[in-house]
C-alpha cells in the first residue's frame, strides 16, 4: 500500500524507493503518536501522503534536471511492442508533469480518485474535507488538466489522434448506432 501510494503520488521516478524509506522511518518515529482513533491503515496512509507531499515541495524548490526515464516495463502484456510501451511511458511521465502544475490539494484528489480508484467519500475521510469539497476539487483539477493537455506534445498528439479517428467516422451512422445498434449473441455453448 505505502509503495503504491507513494508511486501514484510521485509518478515514474527513481526517488520512489527513497520516499518509501522515509515513510517507514517516519512511521518508526511517530508510531507512539498513533492513538488508535482511526484505522492504522488510515493513519499510515496520511503519513505516507504527507511525507510524499513534503518531498514534492522540496523537489519544486530544487533546480529541475532532465527527467530520468523509468525503465520498468509499464505493462507486461505480450502483444505490446516496445514502442507502445515507450509511448505509454512518455504519456505517463507527461501527465505527471502536468500534475506538478496543480495545487497540492488538487493533485491529491486526482491521484486518489482517478489513479487509485478511491471513492470521493473515502477520500473525504482521508484528507479530512467534506465530500462536496473533494468533488469540487476533482472537477476543477480535471478541468485544468484537460486544458493543459495541449502543452504536452505527447498528450496533444494523443488528442489529435483520437480526433482524427472520430472525424473519419460518418456522423450519420453514429446517430443511427446510438439508437439502433444491436449486439446479437449466438447461443452456442461449448
Amino acid at each position, binding site marked *: 500500500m505505502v*509503495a503504491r501510494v507513494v508511486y501514484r503520488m510521485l509518478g515514474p521516478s527513481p526517488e520512489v*524507493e527513497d520516499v518509501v524509506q522515509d515513510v*517507514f522511518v517516519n*512511521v518508526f518515529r511517530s508510531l507512539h503518536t498513533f492513538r488508535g482513533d482511526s484505522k492504522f491503515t488510515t493513519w499510515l496512509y496520511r503519513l505516507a501522503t504527507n511525507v510524499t507531499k513534503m518531498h514534492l515541495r522540496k523537489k519544486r524548490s530544487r533546480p529541475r534536471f532532465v527527467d530520468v526515464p523509468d525503465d520498468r*516495463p509499464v*505493462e507486461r502484456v505480450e502483444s505490446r511492442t516496445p514502442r507502445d510501451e515507450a509511448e505509454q511511458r512518455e504519456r505517463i511521465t507527461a501527465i505527471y508533469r502536468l500534475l506538478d502544475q496543480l495545487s497540492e490539494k488538487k493533485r491529491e484528489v486526482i491521484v486518489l480518485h482517478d489513479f487509485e480508484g478511491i471513492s470521493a467519500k473515502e477520500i473525504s475521510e482521508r484528507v479530512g474535507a467534506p465530500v462536496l469539497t473533494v468533488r469540487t476539487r476533482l472537477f476543477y483539477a480535471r478541468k485544468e488538466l*484537460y486544458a493543459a493537455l495541449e502543452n504536452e506534445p505527447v498528450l496533444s498528439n494523443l488528442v489529435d489522434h483520437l480526433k482524427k*479517428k472520430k472525424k473519419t467516422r460518418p456522423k450519420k451512422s453514429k446517430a443511427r448506432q446510438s439508437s439502433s445498434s444491436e449486439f446479437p*449473441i*449466438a447461443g452456442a455453448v461449448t
Partner: protein
Amino acid sequence: MSQKIHRPKWMALTALASDALSQEGTERLLRHLAQCEVCEDALIEIEAYEQVAAEVRDLPAPEIDWSKMELSIEREASKAARSAKRREEGTSWPLIALAAAALLAVIFSLSPRAAEEEPVVASIPGAELAAPEHDLVGAVVAVAGEVVIDGSRIEIGGEVNGGQSIQTREGGVAHVRLADGTGFQVPGASEVQVHRLTEERVVLELRGGSVANKVRTGTRYRVDVGRYSVLVRGTLFRVDRQDDDVTVTLDEGRVEIRRDDQPITMLNAPARWSSADLIAEEVVARIAVETPRLSVDNPILEIPPMTDIVAWTVDGSRFPAGNIAMRLPVGVHEVRALTVGGEELIGSITMLPEGARISEDMIRGQSETPAARPRASVGQLSASEIRSVVSARNRFLQQCYQRVLSRSAPDLSGRLRMRVNVKRDGHVRRVELLDETHPALERCITREANGWVFPEPEGGPVTFVLPLNLRQR
C-alpha cells in the same frame, strides 16, 4: 455584436466518460454531441485524459528493495537506543527493539509479495551462525512421469531429505514442498542434488536440466550450479543448466549470482542472466511454480494416462501427460487438457476430502462419475439456461459495445469468445475473454458478466464459452 460562445458541458461530459449518466441522459448527450463540435472536442480531451489515467492505474506498484527499509529501520532503532542510553531515561533497548520488530512486521505484511505469505521473523545478523540448524523434510506433492530419488522411484507423498538426489526422466516433473511459501519444481530430464535442507538454510545443486524455485522472504536459499551460485532473497526464479552454460530467469524478487564466491551480478526481477554472455537483460517470462499451493495435508488428485491427451494444466500449473498425482486443497479447481490436435478441453474438478480422480469419460463429457464413487464432479448447465440469463442481460452488453463504438473504436466489429466459470451457487466466479478486443470493451463486458447469476449448476461448478458477435447495423 458579440457572438455567444458555447462552452463545453464539462460536468455532463465527464459523467458520460465515466459511465455515470443514465441511459436517457447518455442518449440526449450523444444527440447533442452529434451536432456540437466544441463538446465533441472536449469529450475527446476527456477521453485522452481517461486513457492516460487508466494507464497510470494499470501500472503495478514498483518493486521495493525491502532490505533497504529493514536497514534504515535498524539504523533508526540503534540511533534511538543510543540517545535513550545517553538520556538514561526509562525507555529500554528491548522496548525499542520490539517497536522496530513490530514495524518490520508491518513492512512485510504490507509488501505485496509477503501479503500472501506467512509473517516473517526478522533475522538477527550473526546470531544464526551460532544457532543450531533444524532438519527439514521436503514432501513430494506432485509427480508426473518417472521421478527417482537416490536410485529409487518415488511416488506422491515421498520424502526428500538433505543429501539426496532427485532425478526426473524426460517428460516427468516433481514438485517438492519445503515449507509454507517455499518449494521447488524439477522438470523433465533434470537432476538436483539436495546438499542442505534445514529450516534455516536450503542449498541445492543443479547438475543438469532446470530447477524452478519459489522462496519465501527471509529464507536462506542457494542453488549451486557448476562454478556459479545463485543466492536468493524471497523470490520466484528458475535456473537452467546445459553443460557449463547457466541461465537464471527471475520472475519476482532479487537474487545474487556468484562465481567461486565472488559476486558477479545482482538481478532484480524481471530479468534473465546467462553465463554465456554475462549480461542480464529484462524479460517478462512467467515461471509457473505452484508448489507452495500443494500442501502435504491435502487429498490426492490422480490423473491416469489418456488417449490423445498430451498435457494437463491444473490451476495454472502444467504437467506432461502420464501418471499424474498431486495434492490439492478440497474445493473446486480448474483443469485443462491439451489434446494431440492442439484442442484444449476445459473443465473443473471438485476435490473431496477422500481425493479425486479424473477419468477419460469425465474430461470428454461422455458420462458422469458413478454415483457409488462420487470422488469428483463436473457441473452442468443447459444451453437454454445460459441463454435465458445472457439474453436478459444482452442490452447491457450492447451498451458496452455502443459506448466503445461512439467513443474510441468506431469500426470495432467481429467475434469474441468469452469463457465464463460459474460457481456451485450459480454466481460467476471468473470471466475471461479468449479473443483480443478493445480494452474498454473488455473491461465493460467482463464487469457486466461478473454480475450474472445462473441457476445452480447440477453437480458442481461449470465452465462454458460464450460466443459474442459484434456487428454494427
